[in-house]
């Protein structure tokens, strides 16, 4: 896979330096966030101080986050919401992707297009009318309000990804199974779906991240502090009027990303190889 280069200098210039630059540029803000979250307030407001390290690290901001806000609850909410909406989107995307990739029926191309068009509708337009729908179903201020609305922007991408992935799985495998007496449905579930697990993984990771990250719907549909998600909770309760509680804010940002980052680090290799499949579609 890797392409070899000639001399060492060339390698340094064309590889090591760009790589280092890229890693530094990407991770620099995180370094800054980490430092800010352990810096005492006095230092935060000092213009002259070196912003890159502190001699008096403190955990008060994390303490504040855990004791004085409902951060653990928000973390749980966000996890629950992200997991269930991902599940729903994967379920729908899996079925829809299969149908659009494998089955011949009259409406196939147009439905595929319609599903992608829905992705174009911006949430800033939708959220007021959606409020009505949410209220009609009586799910306002419950996690279900967002669990059912997040799939609207998750399903199109999952569908596309899995569609592409299905197209790489040779038809013959299913045909074989069907010749052996399996129904179309069984062939789909028993043969094709398992082969698509890497694709499901990658779609799932994408969906999980987007749900974890979402702001507008969560702001409008989740009202009480117990129901909030991390982005909403941290942002709305640590910004009081014209005072930003920077330490706890950055602490919240870090703690709000670590779980997802851990999940990623476990799956990233799969994610990469899985997307390969979709690519060929």
């Amino acid at each position, binding site marked *: 896979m890797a392409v070899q280069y000639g001399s060492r200098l060339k390698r340094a210039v064309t590889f090591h330096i760009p790589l280092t630059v890229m890693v530094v540029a990407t991770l620099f803000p995180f370094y800054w966030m980490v430092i800010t979250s352990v810096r005492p307030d006095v230092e935060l407001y000092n213009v002259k101080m070196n912003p890159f390290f502190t001699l008096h690290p403190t955990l008060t901001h994390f303490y504040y986050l855990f004791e004085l806000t409902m951060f653990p609850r928000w973390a749980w909410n966000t996890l629950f919401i992200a997991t269930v909406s991902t599940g729903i989107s994967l379920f729908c995307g899996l079925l829809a992707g299969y149908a659009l990739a494998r089955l011949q029926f009259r409406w196939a191309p147009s439905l595929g297009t319609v599903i992608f068009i*829905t992705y174009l509708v911006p949430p800033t*337009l939708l959220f007021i009318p959606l409020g009505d729908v949410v209220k009609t179903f009586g799910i306002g201020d419950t996690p279900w309000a967002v669990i059912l609305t997040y799939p609207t922007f998750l399903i199109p991408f999952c569908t596309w990804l899995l569609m592409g992935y299905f197209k790489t799985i040779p038809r013959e495998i299913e045909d074989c199974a069907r010749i052996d007496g399996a129904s179309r449905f069984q062939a789909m579930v028993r043969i094709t779906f398992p082969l698509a697990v890497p694709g499901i993984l990658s779609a799932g990771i994408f969906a999980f991240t987007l749900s974890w990250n979402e702001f507008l719907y969560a702001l409008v549909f989740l009202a009480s502090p117990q129901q909030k998600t991390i982005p909403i909770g941290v942002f709305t309760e640590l910004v009081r009027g014209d005072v930003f509680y920077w330490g706890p804010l950055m602490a919240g940002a870090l703690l709000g990303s670590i779980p997802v980052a851990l999940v990623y680090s476990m799956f990233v290799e799969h994610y990469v190889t899985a997307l390969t499949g979709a690519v060929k579609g």
Partner: protein
Amino acid sequence: MADQRIEPILAESVARGATAIPAPVVVVAVPKLGRPRRFGQLLEREHILAAVLLAPTLVILTLFIAYPFVLGIWLAVSDKVVGRPGNFVGLHNFWVNLNDSIFLRAFQNTFVYTFIATILKLVLGMGAALLLNQHFRFKRIVRASMLLPWIVPTVLSTLAWQWMFDATFSVFNWMLMNVGIISQRILWLGDGTLAMGCLITVNVWRGMPFFAITLLAGLQTVNPDLHEAAEIDGANAWQRFWRVTLPLIKPIMLVVVLFSMIATFADFQLIYVLTRGGPYSSTHVFGTYAYEIAMRAAKLGQGASISLTLFPFLLMVIVFQLWYIRRSD
């Protein structure tokens, strides 16, 4: 018996360059069930199975997008304000928008923001993918950590950037001043053009990992034999990239660009948190302006019309891209 049929097919797929399917493949010996039951028989027919499979998706999308979207269109052609029923006013809202200098600025900004950010994400993402495609010692960690900007909740990472660009506390100013490159601090978010630059920077920082990882996957499907062949034929690295790699990953490139462009067009959070459309309304985009009008002036109809204006342009961009893909297929 079933195993014997599947093995050679799998082998063939692997030879053709498909991903090696992970070891514990579920190769199920399909039990003989005899004649499928009646429901099962129905599902044999492609139309029915398709309908059943697509049903959950269509239900969710109809309920939570199609219906509100239609309501949204109604809002855009009405004079609705919060609390009052609206009256149909035809295209009046759109006419007002055309005469609104802030709207026109937002229009321009949205396109500039989207196009520049997307191009940068593509180029940098491609570069990153090429780098990550190599073997090096900390490959796994680096790949995983590269995704961090995309993982952190946008609201919070943007706040961090806001502090980094802060007129008084900017860490960039601190660095540049200490190194001696500048003597006066740079007011990053205080100038219209500079602020747009900052917005694009944050957007690229946040979105590039997604491009990088996805393009990396694309790169890994390119058969190294092709590269060797080209090298033997005398092509240098750049030519190899341009002539061999690029055409092969064009499909995934285009799709990633598509999805990213759509999201960037409608972007709201990033600009809202970083500049709120300032300074002097020079960084408003459709999303933020629509929000301000609809939420703070309570003019739902007008706000909807601003949001809706996105739609036809987005559609045009998508159609163009799809036509372009089909053309080169």
